[in-house]
């Protein structure tokens, strides 16, 4: 199914969770934050958040900035 990840269309398996997506992308939990359909998903809820077709996700990170 299709999702929008960081502004780009991606295909993922049905029933992929946020936790699964983060792992699939190779990011260590605790180093990134995830916005799911315009709401932040706390890490403890990543396993329980199952993606649906056309969901919009952002995987973000704090970086150096002034």
């Amino acid at each position, binding site marked *: 199914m299709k999702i929008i990840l960081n*502004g780009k269309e991606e295909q993922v398996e049905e029933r992929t969770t946020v936790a699964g997506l983060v792992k699939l992308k190779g990011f260590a939990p605790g180093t990134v934050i995830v916005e799911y359909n315009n709401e932040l998903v*706390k890490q403890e809820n990543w396993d329980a958040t199952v993606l649906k077709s056309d969901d919009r996700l952002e995987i973000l990170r*704090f*970086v150096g*900035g002034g």
Partner: protein
Amino acid sequence: MNDVLKIGGQELNNRLFLGTGKFSSNKYIPEVVRISGVQVVTVALRRVDPEYEEENIAAFVPQDCVLMPNTSGARNAQEAVRIARLARAAGCGNWVKIEVITDNRYLLPDNDETVKATEILAGEGFVVLPYMSPDLAAAKKLVAAGAAAVMPLGAPIGSNRGLKTKELVRILIDEIPLPVIVDAGIGRPSEAAEAMEMGAAAVLVNTAIATAGDPVAMAGAFSLAVKAGRMAYLAEPGETVEYARASSPLTGFLRD
């Protein structure tokens, strides 16, 4: 000397704020914080780049610092509000530096959108420190919108050009009943001291420290300069005059 800067319920003893961009290695950051004693540290929020394994910047910032995420990348108030909410939800605390920029060459802030974002976020309980062009009317609107401080630029971000906006910043210091923090453009410790001598509440420095040959030593130099400038401000500098006024007595000369 008990000289405390109160912002958003925090009592700060250190008037140098640190930006964390552009360090050649993030390993400098804890050292810079230690030598300068900074208590407020800015970070940014970005999409991850799968091609490039970046470090989690928060891991390099000592726990007792106030983390102040900025809204860099925001082009309007709504985008700034979204970034601020995300950062707070992610556990960053409730401080935010509003940065709304539509000009890519000079990176000058959009004061109108900044006022809008400030009003929304202050209403949601954020401690809002807006980065702004030093304009008195805009600064008054930021006060009315609930800002905790105003942060006028000294010169364009990252330019190291110093306090080019000095006369306008001086007017803000004179007229605005909030801490005025000079943010952006400060390139040398002497310029930080200059801002503090004229009554700025603090200065925020990033590029000048991060891109110095020795960032840790430069952070130490900035820390001393900010303290010296603040001490001089509190000591009330003497007046300036056009012609010489002898410092030694004008009587009792050894001559015929």
